[in-house]
């Protein structure tokens, strides 16, 4: 539908939410209302650089007027380019292109109760989710970890808007508190849990949920970045239908290698969360790094997500 369409937006205002987080309010250049979005949605922003267009996705929310879209960007250390661009190259009044909102992190419609676990900038998808649940009069709670009150983006807003549902955990200061995955032991049956934050936090909480007997159906998470490629090694790929062979270097994803060679694999999130870039595997061993496929699909060895998963040695793809 709007997969490849882009909207021209103007940056209406920029607000510093903490030392490292800025909030950008976006409005349509033509004055129309920007498209509505469901809780957990994100947009892809197209950032013009001399080396080409950089694509970065951010969760969307709207704490301002109807018809606007807002994103919050944390200046990453080190930045891979996106957050640095937003923090240092974007000013109020600038015009940029963004995608239509997409949602790879939707709320469950079967949950009796929703529990959000956020660490740092991981709060952003929950802002739109909490707004949606409030409108639908559904029950939820938020557990939010940050270094301190000062570094806790949206602290005042959350405290004023959802005073009974928010629990904060500040790791620095006089009375340090840690957000513990033991909290998962105390949720009533019918609860759905949602994790968003650094990779380590997502791993800890999703492993704990599994260990406590949560069905995968009740556990949801969203990554901001692909899993670390520290120990990636190159591998070879043979395309079954054309017989073509190509090498995927250690620092590149299979998706990038395929697209570089003119194979137009569709993609969206690039972090293994949405399944858009799935390719069929005919032969070979796969290291799956995605959050999308089921355990059965992974062990079938017949499919992989080309944005994050890698082959060992040589793999044959059915494309």
């Amino acid at each position, binding site marked *: 539908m709007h997969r490849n369409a882009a909207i021209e937006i103007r940056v209406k205002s920029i607000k510093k939410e903490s030392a490292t987080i800025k909030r950008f309010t976006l409005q349509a250049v033509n004055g129309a209302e920007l498209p509505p979005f469901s809780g957990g949605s994100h947009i892809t922003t197209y950032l013009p650089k001399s080396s080409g267009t950089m694509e970065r996705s951010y969760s969307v929310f709207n704490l301002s007027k109807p018809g606007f879209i807002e994103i919050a960007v944390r200046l990453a250390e080190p930045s891979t380019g996106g957050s640095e661009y937003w923090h240092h190259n974007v000013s109020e009044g600038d015009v940029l292109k963004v995608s239509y909102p997409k949602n790879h992190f939707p709320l469950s419609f*079967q949950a*009796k*109760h929703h529990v959000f676990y956020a660490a740092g900038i991981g709060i952003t998808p929950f802002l739109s989710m909490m707004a949606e649940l409030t409108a639908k009069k559904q029950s939820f709670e938020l557990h939010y970890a940050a270094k301190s009150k000062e570094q806790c983006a949206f602290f005042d807003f959350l405290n004023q808007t959802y005073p009974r549902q928010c629990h904060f955990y500040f790791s620095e200061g006089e009375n340090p508190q840690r957000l513990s995955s033991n909290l*998962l*032991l*105390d*949720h*009533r*049956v*019918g*609860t759905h849990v949602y994790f968003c934050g650094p990779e380590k936090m997502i791993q800890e909480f999703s492993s704990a949920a*599994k*260990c*406590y*007997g*949560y*069905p*995968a*159906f*009740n556990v949801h998470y969203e990554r901001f970045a692909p899993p670390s490629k520290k120990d990636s090694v190159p591998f070879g790929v043979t395309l079954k239908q054309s017989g073509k062979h190509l090498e995927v270097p250690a620092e590149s994803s299979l998706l990038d290698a395929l697209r570089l060679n003119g194979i137009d694999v569709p993609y969206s999130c690039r972090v293994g969360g949405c399944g858009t870039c799935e390719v069929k595997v005919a032969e070979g061993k796969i290291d799956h790094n995605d959050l999308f496929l089921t355990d059965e699909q992974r062990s079938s060895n017949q499919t992989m997500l080309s944005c994050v998963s890698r082959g060992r040695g040589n793999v044959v793809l059915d494309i």
Partner: protein
Amino acid sequence: MFSYMEGKRKFLFCADSEGVRYLHILVRQAMDENVPFDFHILQEEREESFVNEWFSKQKMGTYLYISGTSDFVKRIQVRAMNAGFSEHDMQTFITGTIKKKLICCTCHGENEVLDSTHVVCVHCGQDLEVSDHYSRRLDAYLGYVTIK
């Protein structure tokens, strides 16, 4: 038949007097693995409202087994779903005849089917074949037109 679910914090076993024997093997395994469990046998329908409180007090990671006649399983399952259990937190086993609801694809009327593969719609007379096309919303199967 039931399968034992590994890695759960607690089991709930709920049966009528017909279904109780199918749970023994699971109870033994739970005991061997030191997994805590509750076990309730419900003899009469008027006892069943008690399960509402029992189910709603449970925490995530609890797994439910329901065993008994078609009507009993259906009633307990509805109460469990209302408390927050989903199909991912439970297994059911029906003793005796399985009753199915069948929706006529012509008039959308509801028919009750026991063991047959073909029925005549009681509302419009259409010859129907019982498909495995199941609607969770209607808790019913779709009846296709029989091709003669």
